[in-house]
């Protein structure tokens, strides 16, 4: 039964997502160029994780019993930086130093620099293995926590993703959930044209022994929320949640092309940020 409580929670998550989208755009916009496409596509999933699902302590980012989030697609760093700032890990203004000299907010997520970033990523495929190792370490120590890892659909070209997938299934890491950001685009073009995925990425994870959940609209907080709740009930195997997303979602200059990285004009930035702010206002008004 659809409770009022859940309706309120979804409304709050939609607002959080709209805020993350605005702040991610402002973060990348402070430099003027960057990986907008893959940052925008995971906004709703990050909102669900940090807005409701994950146990984290902004005052103690390395809290032992926290839930972990690893962006194996490390170029989505700006989305994490905006999310963690809104969550209170550091002041929002700090994210505006993105990629500037001596910043703690580099293009790709770095555990040694940014509070709340659990593992260092950038060389694609590697975060899948390190997240798997973290899940194993937490299981060995009997911690009641969960590791979430994001991989891109293009990233799934990397063989290491599948080495990690077989390891996680073999060691029955049910404290690990992998989101596939299935935005259908990679740097050089459409995934289907650059390097297709046979019977599909979900089918591959299924063949590797994972529980697989397909989310039809990976930019819908409620569908993501329901999938995560289902994943948390599954014991004995890790879960893969395939998010069918839109690359560049909500960025007026990036969504139409699905571009991997963008360097729009100042006017285009103003237009995109204004559109995202209007969307945030609309979401709030719908309450």
């Amino acid at each position, binding site marked *: 039964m659809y409770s009022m409580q859940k309706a309120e929670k979804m409304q709050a998550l939609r607002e959080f997502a709209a805020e993350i989208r605005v702040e991610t755009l402002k973060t990348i916009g402070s430099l003027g160029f960057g990986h907008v496409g893959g940052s925008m596509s995971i906004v709703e999933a990050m909102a669900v994780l940090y807005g409701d699902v994950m146990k984290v302590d902004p005052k103690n980012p390395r809290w032992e019993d926290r839930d972990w989030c690893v962006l194996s697609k490390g170029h989505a760093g700006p989305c994490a930086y905006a999310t963690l700032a809104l969550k209170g890990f550091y002041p929002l203004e700090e994210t505006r130093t993105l990629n500037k000299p001596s910043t703690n907010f580099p293009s790709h997520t770095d555990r040694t620099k940014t509070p709340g970033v659990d593992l260092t990523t950038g060389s694609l495929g590697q975060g899948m293995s390190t997240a798997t190792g973290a899940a*194993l370490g937490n299981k060995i120590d009997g911690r009641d926590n969960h590791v979430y890892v994001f991989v891109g659909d293009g990233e799934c070209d990397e063989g290491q993703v599948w080495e990690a997938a077989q390891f996680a299934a073999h060691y029955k890491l049910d404290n690990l959930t992998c989101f596939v950001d299935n935005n259908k685009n990679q740097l050089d073009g459409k995934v289907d044209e650059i390097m297709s995925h046979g019977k599909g990425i979900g089918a591959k994870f299924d063949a590797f022994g994972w529980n697989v959940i397909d989310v039809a609209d990976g930019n819908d907080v409620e569908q993501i929320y329901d999938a995560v709740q289902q994943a948390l009930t599954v014991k004995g195997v890790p879960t893969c949640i395939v998010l069918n997303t839109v690359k560049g979602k909500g960025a007026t200059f990036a969504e139409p092309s699905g571009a991997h990285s963008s360097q729009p004009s100042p006017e285009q930035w103003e237009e995109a940020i204004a559109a995202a702010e209007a969307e945030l206002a609309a979401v709030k008004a719908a309450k």
Partner: protein
Amino acid sequence: MSFTLIGKHEKDKRNCRDGYVQAMLELMEADKSVVHVDCDLMNCINTGKLKAAFPDRAINAGIAEANAMGVAAGLTATGKKTWMHSFGCFSSRRAFDQAFMSAAYAKLGVKILGSDPGVCAAYNGGTHMPFEDCALYMSVPDAIVIDPVDYVQVYALTKKLTAVEGRISYMRMIRKGFTTVYADGSDFEIGKGVTLKENGDKDQATIIASGIMVDESLKAYEKLAEEGISVRVIDMFTWKPIDEDLIVKSAKETGAIVTAENHNCTVGLGAAVARVLAEKCPTPVEMVGVHDQFGQVGAQSFLQEAYKLTADEIIAKVKKVVGRK
């Protein structure tokens, strides 16, 4: 650091791998955070004993070294002191990007073990014969690179490296028993060379060696002594951070250096020593080692002759370098 030299060129009855396993059994018993990750090579280095004693903390990652390195880094992020093992060729070349980014760059101090260094890969042949493993890891900022010689040294350094946090280390390991150099109880300090032979101002050159070349250097020392040529012998088991002070002191006091390694010397110990001398104390250097060649198949004794990793070659290079003074 305190050591007792045996150095009688006798075969070590104990396998080097058992030095690692014994140290790890003691470490894992005392400290629940110590873990071992292997790549379907537990039977090669007897880490099945770790699995039997600590089933949750001796982890077989299968034949997937890149993932094993990443898993080791992830385990380290949860507070584990993590060793990762494969053959030297694979724990370096096959997993290097992972060692670099997931571990070293992320300041997660994975301890990497590479068995069958250089010609010790013998019958596995050129595909499995790393003459570049140490060079790869020497290129990683702040990494520790170690080439030990016998059971006693492997045992002691396994314990020392396990205590190092925040920086990666790479230790080569001869699988089997090679030659006993040190007596039980010998202890070593990472980054400090061991002066095994020294005769004050009589020394005409210094031999700087590690691993299997330490015993060859001791043989060379004896033969040279018979000819009235006195040399100094240093076991430079730490290639990085290298003992610069000892290199400079030896160069100043003996005026000539010969390096000896089971590795490509153009990017290995020889190159590291030459770099220090070029910067701090220009001194004639001759290098014994593999000169930019690939490995090949054969018995270790054949391979040591083929690549001139012998006492005779060290003697020839000592005479040559003394002539250059």
